[in-house]
């Protein structure tokens, strides 16, 4: 926001935002679920950022003399895989792929979905009908399968995974944004902004968008969890980021052939995926409580 904010036409959103932030902080103080979620997410983000310093070994260094050694032995805390690569290091480096794809894909979904939803909700008429029709149809595609088909055409690559997953999220974001816009556009401060002669674009970016945001944040957080699961599934099928780069999904896939003699290869990265997704889901659930005014009142009353 710019420095002109204070003396601008509508002060309602600002006051709302202040109350909103207070509510969020309040809930984080009270809601253990949201705090635990945030804690897990922060740990995973730190692990991803510090991967070069945290990983004890080169994640792609092959050493056939130490193939499939079990967890807890000679400098390999989580053991090694069928090519003698250190599992802990692979999982640490794999966090980069999962988090990047998860976050960027949701970012793509938010950007495209918000644009479509804002346009549809604000302009109405034929534009809205056309956009919503396409979105209704897009929602008929099972998420993973749509992502698979897009990867099939674009080819397996990290950027393409982000695009594919992002596209599959777009319709859902567009629906949420449109729904918020429909209720916001009738509100008094948008009316007053229009009365003082603000143009459409300005009303959209200054008033409608910031207010549609709160409804979207919860969904975005929960979507990062789903995006991580989809990325892992694509990698597991061999259609994500190509090897030898480690991803959580392809480590599980590597271990598949050695499930009986060396189950840890597949089991450990799966646990890490679950832990991370759980973090985002907890965080999202906690945020939902914080942003739902009904619940907020309830808790403050207690």
């Amino acid at each position, binding site marked *: 926001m710019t420095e002109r904010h204070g003396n601008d036409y509508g002060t309602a959103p600002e006051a709302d935002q202040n109350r909103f932030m207070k509510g969020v902080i309040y809930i984080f103080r009270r809601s253990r679920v949201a705090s635990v979620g945030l804690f897990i997410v922060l740990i995973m983000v730190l692990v991803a950022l510090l991967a070069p310093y945290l990983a004890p070994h080169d994640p792609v260094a092959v050493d056939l003399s130490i193939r499939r050694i079990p967890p807890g032995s000679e400098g390999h805390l989580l053991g090694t895989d069928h090519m003698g690569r250190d599992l802990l290091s692979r999982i640490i480096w794999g966090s980069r792929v999962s988090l990047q794809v998860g976050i960027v894909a949701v970012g793509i979904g938010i950007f495209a979905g918000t644009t479509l939803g804002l346009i549809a909700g604000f302009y109405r008429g034929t534009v809205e009908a056309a956009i919503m*029709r*396409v979105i*209704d*149809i*897009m929602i*008929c*595609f*099972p*998420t*993973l*399968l*749509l992502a*698979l*088909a*897009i*990867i*099939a*055409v*674009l*080819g397996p690559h990290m950027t393409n995974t982000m695009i594919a997953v992002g596209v599959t999220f777009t319709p859902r974001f567009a629906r949420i944004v449109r729904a918020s816009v429909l209720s916001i556009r009738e509100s008094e401060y948008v009316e007053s902004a229009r009365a003082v002669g603000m143009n459409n674009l300005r009303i959209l970016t200054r008033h409608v968008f910031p207010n549609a945001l709160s409804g979207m944040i919860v969904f975005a957080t929960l979507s990062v*969890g789903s995006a991580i*699961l989809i990325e*892992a*599934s694509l990698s*597991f*099928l*061999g*259609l994500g980021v190509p090897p030898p780069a480690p991803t959580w*999904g392809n480590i*599980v*896939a590597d271990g*598949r052939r050695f*499930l*009986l003699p060396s*189950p840890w290869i*597949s*089991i450990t990265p*799966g646990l890490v*995926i*679950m*832990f991370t*997704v*759980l973090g985002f*889901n*907890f965080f999202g659930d906690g945020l939902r409580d914080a942003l739902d005014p009904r619940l907020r009142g309830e808790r403050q009353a207690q």
Partner: protein
Amino acid sequence: MAAYLGRRLIYIIPTALGVATIVFFIIHLIPGDPVLAMLGDDAPTEAVEDVRRALGLDQPLSTQYLQFIGGLFRGDLGVSITAPRPIASEVRRVLPYTIELAGTAMLIGLTLGLPLGITQAVKRASGLDFVASVISVIWYAAPIFWVALLGMYFFSLRLGWFPLTGAGERGNITSTLYYLALPAITLGLRRIALVARMMRSSVLDVLGQDYIRTARSKGLSERIVVYRHAVKNAVIPVITASGMEFGTLLGGAVITEIIFVRPGMGRLIVQGILGRDYPMVQGTLLIFALIFLFVNLLVDVSYAGIDPRIRYD
């Protein structure tokens, strides 16, 4: 009712056409040359041209589109590059396996998830409610391929209760069920978590309504209030949501089929992608979306049995 059904079936046609159009454009408009991707960048020009002609890719896009849509009306999904038979007959061959798997998983999810959610709501904040909530939240974060491998490790490899892979002998119901059990439970467990969570909050919502208070003040027993009044109303949004969630179930079925080496639509689409068989990817993606449409049509129609207020005029 029959008129309503007929009208719904007619309404579904434009959506199905829209779905087919989007499938076509995903495969044809995304930059990149499918034929080059298939044969490799340094393939001889004549070979590229041959394949292009064989697939009809030398025709203008509009002609290809009309041929594709026209074919659909005749039940023709085009010709596969890798499979020996037309795509439609491949789909017909494997579709029962996928329906069997997804249907059983759905059934497991509903028959166990609905009662669990109701019990949780009625015994809100009890030990059972807490444990079930925690398990379903954690379970919901677990990737399906990992759950499948865990099941395989413990129940097939260690305990030997279930066969490792395959789909059993066709036509032999015992064998089919024996092979279906573990994959269906794998998929179904996730549904139980999802359905129980939705049902719990839906029942709690309904229990707070005025007509429930009225029913209670009339002196009706708690059992009748919950099962006659609350559950009937609470189940509708849950059924709708499980219809919308059917897509996730289909995605899970794809992964499950790959892991348990079962024939099915999932195997078909993944083989299509790995073999760069674009007509196959196009055809199977379309069928998946149509299954989703059809299931949601069934959901709409099934309301008749649940909610007498919904009328079909």
